[in-house]
């Protein structure tokens, strides 16, 4: 077990690095990404509310009625200021979809039939949400206008229009539709699809490079130790460290989510993670056969992990990606990791065969990557023995 022990000796020497990685990524996951996720329900229609901010300089019956009515249908939020820069920031970051500014004299202008100079909506007019909100502003004022034309006082008209705005249409969910929303637990595992590749390649690749060192390799080859035994022990040690990593992130998940995550679901989530870690180990093996430059290792690890994250829907919801991208994503292991994750979280136990298929495909990807790495490794060895060295 010499090589096996050596693997863990090097891993132990890198324990500070591993702690840094786990600490930083756990902080990113639990401190930044998870708090941004929203839990959704699956079986009812969720009203889409627009966030808006309102500045009412008129403070009339009509302006107050408008603000109240909009607050019923949408979400009124406070913003620090109504200057152009703040409005632009809040609109761009999606904190509001519209800023409403009601100028003094609005109610009088409404009675005269000319409100445009007194009511301004700051938004991006071409956006869906801005259109919806502007439609609701017009709707309320149209009702008030109708009621006042019918002889209601402004007070009564505003009240009647407000009551009307509160009425909702009957919306039913069509059978066969997929209204599932991503859970926070799913988001946690989803982002691990990015982090695991990065972590495994950053930590394991240098160890594999060290074990592939020419002098060390020559010493092992001239010993009584068989070549297959060496590879077998490296494989075992890599797998064991992968299982350890799965254990760490499963433990963190269990500590954070508590009883919400457990039983067979947890076992399947962890199995899925293990399959993906095996893919990550295969990628680490491939990188170790391509280069020994630490800068290049980090660059390649980032290109692969971030590239798959963008392509397979880790950072942006998958359904938003174009058809072409969705087709290409099927040829990447992260897609099958996320696919299994969706099935475990959304349609278990009916989807168990699909989940197993996704596990199998991930392992198949790992096998293909390992074969590719061995081919490259042989080519590099042959070229170096004939005097040519790899450019990378």
């Amino acid at each position, binding site marked *: 077990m010499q090589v096996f022990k050596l693997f863990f000796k090097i891993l132990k020497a890198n324990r500070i690095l591993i702690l840094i990685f786990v600490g930083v990524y756990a902080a990113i996951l639990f401190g930044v990404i998870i708090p941004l996720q929203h839990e959704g329900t699956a079986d009812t229609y969720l009203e889409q509310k627009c966030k808006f901010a309102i500045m009412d300089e008129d403070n009339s019956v009509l302006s107050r009625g408008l603000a109240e009515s909009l607050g019923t249908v949408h979400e009124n939020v406070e913003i620090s200021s109504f200057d152009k820069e703040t409005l632009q920031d809040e609109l761009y*970051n999606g904190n509001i979809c519209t800023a409403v500014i009601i100028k003094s004299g609005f109610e009088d202008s409404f009675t005269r039939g000319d409100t445009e100079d007194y009511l301004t909506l700051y938004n991006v007019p071409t956006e869906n949400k801005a259109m919806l909100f502007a439609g609701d502003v017009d709707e309320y004022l149209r009702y008030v206008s109708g009621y006042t034309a019918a002889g209601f006082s402004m007070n009564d008209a505003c009240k009647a229009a407000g009551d009307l705005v509160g009425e909702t249409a009957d919306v039913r969910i069509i059978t066969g539709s997929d*209204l599932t929303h991503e859970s926070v637990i799913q988001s946690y595992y989803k982002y691990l699809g990015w982090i695991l590749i990065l972590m495994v390649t950053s930590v394991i690749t240098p160890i594999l490079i060290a074990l592939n060192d020419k002098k060390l390799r020559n010493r092992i080859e001239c010993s009584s130790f068989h070549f297959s035994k060496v590879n077998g022990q490296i494989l075992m040690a890599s797998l064991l460290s992968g299982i350890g990593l799965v254990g760490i992130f499963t433990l963190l998940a269990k500590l954070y989510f508590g009883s919400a995550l457990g039983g067979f679901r947890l076992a399947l989530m962890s199995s899925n993670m293990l399959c993906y870690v095996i893919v990550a180990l295969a990628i680490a093996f491939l990188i170790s056969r391509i280069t020994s430059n*630490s800068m290049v290792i980090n660059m390649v690890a980032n290109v692969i992990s*971030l590239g798959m994250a963008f392509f397979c829907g880790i950072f942006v919801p998958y359904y*938003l990606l174009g058809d072409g991208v969705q087709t290409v994503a099927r040829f990447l292991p992260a897609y099958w990791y996320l696919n299994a994750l969706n099935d475990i979280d959304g349609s278990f136990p009916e989807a168990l065969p699909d989940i197993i298929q996704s596990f199998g495909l991930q392992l198949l990807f790992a096998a293909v990557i390992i074969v590719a790495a061995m081919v490259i490794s042989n080519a590099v060895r042959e070229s170096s023995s004939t005097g040519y060295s790899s450019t990378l």
Partner: protein
Amino acid sequence: MFIHNFKYAFKQMIRNKAAIIWTLIFPLALGSIMFLAFGNIYDSDHVFHTLNVAVVRDEENIYFEYLLDELSTGDDGSETLLNVEFLDRENAEKGTVNGDYDAVIYEGREITLGVTKSDIQQEIVRSIVEQYNKTVSMIGDVAKSNPAGIPAVISTLSDSVRGYASQETTTDGNTDMYTNYFYAIIAMSCLFGAYAACDFSEKLALAASELGKRRSIARCSKGLQAVSSFFAMWIVQLAVEIITIFYLKAIGVNLGDKILHMIPVVAAGAAVGIALGTLIGSVPVLSQGQKAGITTSVSLGLCVMADLCAEGIKDMVEHTVPILNRINPAVLISDSFYALNVFDTYERYFRNLILLTVIAVVFLAVSYIILRRDRGASI
């Protein structure tokens, strides 16, 4: 002496072909992948496009059909609100499940709606249906309280199809929030200059390498060696960033019209990246692997805060601990691009630029102090 050191540091940089290639591949590959993945998401998901609606006529309602006709007829070929198709229930629902229609409207005395998801498109259709139902309800109200007022109500409702409010924008620039991802990738590429700098800095540190020992006894101050290496790396990194910006622009990423104004930002960003690497590399107690790990963690952490992997993180920090955004170089780079792209003024752009320069100088100053204090007592 500066020129001499600079020349050799520069030669060393450009001879490390693998490093140069990957430094360039990183932003170009990720920029291309991102552009393919969600280059058009904003337009398809946030910008309004005609909604496809299937109508199931359970009972004929001529008033509602008149409304549908109005909403699906555009002026002079302009985009209409709805594209309506009358179908039987089975085909309408099947088509909606398949994604051919945004919603199903069930026409009758009261209008109801069928959807497959809760999204903004469905909400707009719901709003149309609700407005019709509410208008009917309002006429009913008036009929009860003041029947004589009905003609006036109908006349007012017909007159008031126009908007009551004026709509204004805060910018003529790019409002696509997904562009933030591209800004973050450029920021990340700048900060990844830290890898090369970390390596160079290690070669200056007395205890870290043989070259460091030789350099320590050379008749050239460490400060001069550090500064000359810094400029050599900075030039290479800056070239990479300029290529990245022009490449992203060429493939169609909307980076705005002020491309030349972006160059000072990446120049300052690259300086911060290299200064960060110099700082990490100069810490004597860390091994090479630990330095690489810290470089990765720090640069990734900073870029995550600049919305690299999820929207809204930068904004969340801005509303809770804004000072963090003022000292995070990735956020400063990304925010400078944003400010250039949407504002007419340069106040924020220059503020970010100054902050980036200050951060680079502070990192370099601290690295210099660490390198100077290294007297080799531990050897």
